[in-house]
Each structure stands twice: as structure tokens, then as C-alpha cells.
């Protein structure tokens, strides 16, 4: 009988070994995956029970958790809600989370592996476990200036530091109040959320890095000039035929310059003049000469067709991969299916300002333990060398010339500071309101700020507005706010 007993004993041990393995699998190997399941109500409750980390700009919180006397123990509050709503995103009871709140949730809630030991330590020393705080690269003065300057327009401003890729301004209008979505009343949150999501102006969209992207129009000509100079076959003095109308090859479609005449006087026009006067026909000619492939390659080096995690995922700006000649001609002045975020356009200017180097953009400076010890530190990362330092110097001169010697960009001239710039007025179809762009950098000789401004829906003026009156002054206000600090 003992032989059978031995076997039964082995079976019993086997059963328990299975249980040991099952428990280890659930509680260790698949624990993170189970914790991340959207149906896991514990994750949501947890995020309220522990003090969630703050989101900081220049040391001051733009999102923080303050103790309250209800079941959730902490209330998420946003001290300057509308100005930063597109960056912080929202943090709700039942509608998920977005922005930094969503992207860096595991750090803010203290649930990443690297925080495990600190949490353990907090428990052992009887402290309340806390999430890590997130410090952003934003400049509060410039961000506020951008938000105020945008006024009632629908649009966005994005400023980066050319040498590092740090995002200093990320403003988007219209905005919303994330405090309303952080309420602890589920029904209230749902009704606020439903109202915001059905708002035709889409306040929940961060237009600086995503949304329904706009055609870049003439600001794309910077990419064209870069491609031309990099090819080695062109200089700013290269000339192009200067008709008042240009027939797209193989079609009966004629394109015109925005002035409906020739590009300045003369039978030919130089590349520099074409850029300064922002003429379409010379660029269409240039595009056809360079070919789709060369333009695409240059655009990709600047970051087109790549999605950047800043750390929120920014939409990839689009330069079409497949195009015929007429489409290439249209794309050469930023029309057809070319689409760009303000982030991408600012990156083009930043690369020109930074000797041709495109830095990986981010809004994340540091992640800090509750003890203020950094878990992660900002490190500048190079995305690509889009153009040579020589090309960048040449384009810089052309862009300074744009501002100083053209009546298209007068409103960004700043006393005592050289500004490099380029405007764009993109068409969205017959009778549709224009999209206004400005991009540039300052001070031009030692660039600190690269900026992109976009104003959608014609600034409320349909097809009657001018970039110089609408987008350009916003850029000046933001740059001045930074330069005057």
C-alpha cells in the first residue's frame, strides 16, 4: 500500500507545484499586462488612492493632486487649465486619459518597475507611496504669450530650442478646462466629455502636434530650397523661367503666382527672389526638375512621414510617396496632399537654425522621484543631418532677407534682433478659408527659438485675410516674450 501512497504523494506535490506556477505566472510574469487591461477597475481606483505625481513647468505645477475628503482621497487640479490643457491632457474617472497624463501615466501613478524599490521603501518607512513628478521643457512666459496671442483664432504655436529639440511652447486653440473632466462625479464627467467631443471646433485636439493637418503651403518652399541647394546643381542665384501662368505638364490646368502676375520683373527669376516673394511657378518648375524622389528624400530627412513621441505621439506629417508630375509640381509649393503639423514646420526652421541638424523634439525634461531624485533626465538626441551647415547658412541668409526686404513679413521685425522667417498661405479648395502659416527663428545669427504658427479657418476671414496680419504678429509676440526675458 505504501507504493501507492508514494505515488499519491507525488500527485499531491504535482498539484501544488501547478498552483505555485500558476500564482507566479499571474502575479509576476503577466501582472503588468493584467494591470494595464482597460477593464481593470483597480488601476483606476489606484490612480486616485495614491498621490499622483505633478506635472511641472519651470518648477510650478500645471497639474497636481491635492488631498480631498472623499473616497478618492485626491483631486486632480490644473492651476492654469486652458493654457496647458493640450499638453497635460485630462485625467478622468471613466473616460481615460490623454496628453502627458496618459502617456506618462505609469510614472505619474508610480507603477513602473524602476519605481518599485522606492515604493517598497515608502511602505516600509510608513510613508504614503507617491507617483513621480514630470518636469516639462516648456517656457511658461512664452507659452502664456502664445496662448494669449492666439486669441480667438483656431490654431497653434510651437516653439523649439534648435540646438536641443526641447519644445518651449506648445499652444493650441480653442482649449478646454481639464478640471471639469477631473471631477469625481462620473455623470458630470461624461456630460462634459460628450459636450467637448461633439464640439465642431474640436477643443480636445492638440493642433500643435496632431489633428486634421493642414497643407503647409509656401512654408514648404524651405524644404524645396534645401533640396535644391543640397543637390549641388542650384544656388540662390539660379534662375527659372518667369511666366505669369504655368501649365502643369500633361494637363490643361494652369497655375499662377499668388499675385496673378510674374514673379517680379524680368523673363527669369532667381531662387532667392522666388522664395522672398513666395512665388509658386518657379517652385513648380524647380520641383519638376528635381523630381519627386529628391523632394521626398529631403522632406523625410526633416522628419516628414515620421511619427515623433514628444512623448505624446505626434502625428506624422505627410509628403506623398507616389505622385505623377503635375502632382509633384503642386506639392512643390506645399499643396496637393502635403500635410504638416506646426511641430514639423518648426523642426524645418530649427534644422536650418542648427547647422542642418534635426534634433528629436520633446516636451519632457525630467521625471522626478517624490524625493526629487531624477529617474530620467533630458538628453538631446539627433534625429538626422537634414542639410549641410553650408546649405543651412545660405538658407538662413535667404530667410533673413525674406523678413528684411519683403512686404509679406513685415510684422515679425523686432528692434535690434535679426529674424529669419517664411510665411505660407495654404489653399484648402475652392471657396474654403485659407490656412495661414509663419515659421522662422531668432536671433538669426545665434538662434534660440525656432517657431511655427498656424491659423486655421482663414482666421475667421475666409479668403480675405493676410498671413502678415494674422499669423506673423503672433510669432513676433511669442519671440519677443522669449527675447525680452
Amino acid at each position, binding site marked *: 500500500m*505504501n507504493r501507492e501512497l508514494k505515488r499519491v504523494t507525488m500527485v499531491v506535490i504535482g498539484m501544488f507545484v501547478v498552483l505555485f506556477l500558476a*500564482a507566479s505566472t499571474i502575479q509576476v510574469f503577466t501582472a503588468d499586462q493584467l*494591470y494595464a487591461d482597460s477593464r481593470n477597475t483597480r488601476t483606476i481606483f489606484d490612480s486616485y488612492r495614491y498621490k499622483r505625481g505633478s506635472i511641472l513647468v519651470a518648477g510650478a505645477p500645471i497639474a497636481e493632486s491635492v488631498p480631498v475628503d472623499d473616497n478618492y482621497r485626491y483631486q486632480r487640479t490644473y492651476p492654469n487649465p486652458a493654457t496647458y490643457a493640450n499638453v497635460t491632457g485630462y485625467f478622468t474617472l471613466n473616460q481615460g486619459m490623454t496628453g502627458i497624463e496618459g502617456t506618462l501615466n505609469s510614472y505619474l501613478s508610480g507603477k513602473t518597475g524602476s519605481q518599485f524599490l522606492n515604493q517598497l521603501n515608502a511602505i516600509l518607512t510608513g510613508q504614503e507611496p507617491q507617483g513621480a513628478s514630470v518636469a516639462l521643457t516648456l517656457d511658461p512666459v512664452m507659452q502664456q504669450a502664445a496662448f494669449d496671442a492666439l486669441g480667438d483664432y483656431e490654431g497653434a504655436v510651437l516653439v523649439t530650442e534648435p540646438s536641443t529639440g526641447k519644445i518651449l511652447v506648445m499652444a493650441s486653440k480653442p482649449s478646454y478646462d481639464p478640471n471639469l473632466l477631473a471631477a469625481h462625479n462620473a455623470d458630470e464627467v461624461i456630460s462634459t466629455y460628450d459636450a467637448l467631443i461633439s464640439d465642431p471646433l474640436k477643443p480636445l485636439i492638440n493642433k500643435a502636434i496632431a489633428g486634421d493637418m493642414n497643407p503647409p503651403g509656401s512654408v514648404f518652399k524651405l524644404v524645396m530650397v534645401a533640396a535644391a541647394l543640397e543637390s549641388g546643381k542650384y544656388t540662390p542665384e539660379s534662375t527659372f523661367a518667369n511666366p505669369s501662368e504655368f501649365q502643369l505638364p500633361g494637363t490643361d490646368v494652369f497655375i499662377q503666382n499668388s499675385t496673378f502676375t510674374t514673379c517680379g520683373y524680368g523673363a527669369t527669376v532667381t531662387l532667392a527672389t522666388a522664395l522672398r516673394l513666395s512665388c509658386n511657378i518657379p517652385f513648380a518648375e524647380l520641383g519638376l526638375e528635381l523630381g519627386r524622389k529628391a523632394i521626398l528624400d529631403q522632406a523625410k530627412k526633416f522628419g516628414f512621414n515620421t511619427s515623433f513621441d514628444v512623448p505624446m505621439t505626434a502625428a506624422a506629417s505627410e509628403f506623398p510617396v507616389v505622385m505623377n508630375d503635375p502632382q509633384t509640381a503642386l506639392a512643390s509649393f506645399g499643396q496637393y496632399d502635403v500635410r504638416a503639423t506646426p511641430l514639423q514646420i518648426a523642426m524645418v526652421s530649427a534644422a536650418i537654425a542648427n547647422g542642418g541638424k534635426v534634433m528629436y523634439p520633446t516636451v519632457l525634461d525630467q521625471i522626478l522621484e517624490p524625493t526629487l531624485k531624477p529617474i530620467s533626465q533630458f538628453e538631446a538626441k539627433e534625429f538626422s543631418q537634414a542639410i549641410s551647415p553650408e546649405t543651412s547658412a545660405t538658407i538662413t541668409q535667404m530667410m533673413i532677407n525674406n523678413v528684411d526686404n519683403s512686404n509679406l513679413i513685415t510684422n515679425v521685425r523686432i528692434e535690434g534682433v535679426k529674424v529669419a522667417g517664411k510665411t505660407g498661405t495654404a489653399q484648402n479648395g475652392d471657396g474654403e478659408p485659407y490656412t495661414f502659416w509663419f515659421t522662422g527663428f531668432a536671433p538669426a545669427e545665434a538662434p534660440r527659438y525656432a517657431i511655427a504658427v498656424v491659423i486655421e479657418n482663414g482666421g475667421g476671414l475666409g479668403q480675405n485675410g493676410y498671413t502678415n496680419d494674422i499669423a506673423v504678429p503672433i510669432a513676433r509676440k511669442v519671440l519677443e516674450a522669449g527675447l525680452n526675458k
Partner: protein
Amino acid sequence: MSAPAPDFVATGSIGRLKRVRSSQRMRNVELILILVASAINVASLVLVQWAVLDTIDAGPLAICGLLAVLVLSIHVAMRFVAPQADALILPIATVLNGLGIAEIYRIDLALGNEGWDSLANKQIAWTALALGSALATIIVIKHQRILQRYTYVAGLLAVLLIALPMVPGLGISINGARVWIQLGTLTFQPGEIAKIALAVFFAGYLVQRRESLSMVGRTFLGMRFPRGRDLGPIIVVWALSMAVIVFQRDLGTGLLFFGLFLVMLYVATGRGSWVALGLSLVGVGAVIANQTLDYVNGRFANWYDAFNDANFSADGGSYQLVQGLFGLAHGGVIGTGLGEGMPEVTPVSQSDYIIASLGEELGLAGIFAILCLYLLLVGRGLRIGFAGHDDFSKLLAVGLSFTIALQCFIVIGGVMRVIPLTGLTTPFLAAGGSSLVANWIIAALLLRLSDSIRSEPRLVVG
């Protein structure tokens, strides 16, 4: 003094043997372990109160102190009636019981259950009753041979207990399973007691018939089958337990009875082929049940496709299983700490899912500790089986300890998604009176068996 050497050697080895088996020493070890177990139990309650109430409420602590006194009274009684009994069984059962109460109490606090709605209060009352039953068992049953005399009575009792919930007006259905009876405000699961009666019956009957079962019979398809009259009564009891699955809709209890039956039959006869046959019957039964019984089919679907949204949100779907897994994952390696997790989110977190609740708050570390305690307890029982001199003691010890092991596997394995979930209680831990009483009686019987075996005049290991 003239020739001391040989004598000295002889008395020396016997002396050591005596020392090892000294009842005094064993009982002292037990006493210390009971005090340790009680300290752990009180500490758990204090931790729960600290975490949830931020203060110490002396009331529940005092009541649990009284339970410790009851355990100690069993200990004292054993010094007289079972001095040679195993020293680990009582402390292990005590600490499991106490951890269960602490966790049930903790969930009561979270759910706001008070007074007689509080499952912890009921559990404490049942624990007192269970400890009383254990004490009575160990005093009344002076030797397991008494039980052997009542083999057929035990079989009949098992059948009656199993059938009891089917009596109109007495039995009630909870969550679709008709395995409870209602006595006033109390509900009782007679099936829990039936498993003890079944173990006694199987042990007694198999001892009588093991020779004829294994020797006499016809060979069919290369397998030797026993004569009908030898196997008849066993088949009847087995069929009855299977009826539980079909008519009372209680998969867990049915599986438990069947597993008990197979293991005891195997140990008695040594016929592995019958085990294989039995297991294949389970397989065939499972397939048929899956196709014909809706509730079985649902259990299977909830198991193999638990995370499917359709199953998750279905009525009677995998919601509670998945919530239990979320809870376990939430606990991770070291757990949230007692009172710091959210076990109350999971349905029936105090009974069927008590292990998930404890796993959330005590973590993998706690789960391992609890599983080790069970393994140790079952190990002590199997050890008694090895050491037993007579077949009845051996079989009964195996049967009783195996029920604990199998019950753990069925319910914990169900919660951890190793096997489809079936409704069973986790021994000693889960809220549920009948289960507590039954398991404490099993503990008492194991204590009785270990004492009888050691005190009988024969040198054995252990």
C-alpha cells in the same frame, strides 16, 4: 556498574527514541506553535484595523482571543486524550482559520457589512462551533476502529447528507447550485460533512474487500474488472456523487467526491488501470456535460476564453474570474498589504475568491506561504498514512488528507485559471460554516489517527 557498556548503548538508543517520541515534548512544540499562530492572527487583525479604520478596535481582537482560548483548550484536552498526536496540524489549521477571518473582516469593513450581515461575525461564530466539534471529535472518538465499525452507517449517512438539499422546503439554491439547506437563518452545506462520511465508508469498505477486489474478477479488454458484488456499493455511492453534478449543479463537490473515490480505490487495490479508466470517464463526462449542461458549458467558455469581452460581460460570465486575476496581479510579489488592496471589487471575495483576496493583499509571498501551509498539512496527513499499521487507518488518513489537497487544487486552480472554475470553499480560509466544521473535524480525525498510530506498541518511522 560491573558491565555498564552494553546496557548503556541499549538504553541510550531507546532513550533517544523515547525523547523524539516524547508526548510531553511534542505537546510543548504544539503549544509554542499555537501561540505563534495566534500571534499572527491577532497581528493580521491589527494590520487590517490600522489600514482600514486607522484605529484599533478591541472588540474583534477580544473575540479572536477567545477563539485562541478555544484552540488552547483543544490542546489541553489532547494532552490527556491524544498525547502522541501530530504537533503541526492544530497550529496550521489555526493560522489558516485566523488569516481567513482577518481577510473576511477586512472585506466586511470595505463593504460596510455590520452585525449579522457581517460574514466575519458569522465566521467567528462558526469557528467556535467548528472548534467545539473538533474537540468533541477528539474526545468521543477514542480510536479510529470505532469509525470502522460504522462503515455502512457512514455510507448511508453520506447518501442522506448529499440528498438532503433536494428535499423540498429544506434545500435552497444559491447561484444555481442546490447544495445548501436552510435552518432558520443559517445555511448549511451538508455535502461538506458528507465528504468525511464518504472517506470513512470508502476506507471501511475497501479494507473489507480489497483482497477480493484486486484478486477476483474477470479480465476484459486486457483489464481485470472486479465482481459486481464487490464493486456494487462503491458504484452506488459514486453514481450518487455524480448525480450531485447533474441535479444539484455543483461541479466542484462532484469532482471532489470522485477524486476521493479514485485515490482511495487506487491506494487500496494498487490498480493503476482503474485510475486510468476513472480519469477517462471524467474526460468523457466532461465532454458530454459540456455539450448538454448549459452551466458546465458556460464554465468552460469562461475558462478558456476568459478575457473575451463577450464572456466578460455576459451574465454569469468570466467577470468574477477576471476580477480575481486582476486582484492577484494587483498584489504582485509582495502584495498591497492587509487592508490596502481592493479585494472587495471581486464578487464573492470572501468565500470562493478568498485566495484571490489574500493574494492581492499578501502578494505572491503570501500565496506561497499559504500553499506551503496546506502542503505541510496534507503532508502530515499522508505521513500518518505511511506510518499507519492497519489498512483502515492508512486509507482513512490518505482519504482525509487528499480531500484537503484536492479541494485546494480545485478551488485555487479554478481561481487561478488552471482549470475551469467550480464552486468550492478553500479549506479553513473561506467564509462558510459547513466547510469550517467539516475541515476542523478532518483535522481532529487526523490528530486522532496520528495519536493512535504512535501510541501503538510498534517501532515505526515518524
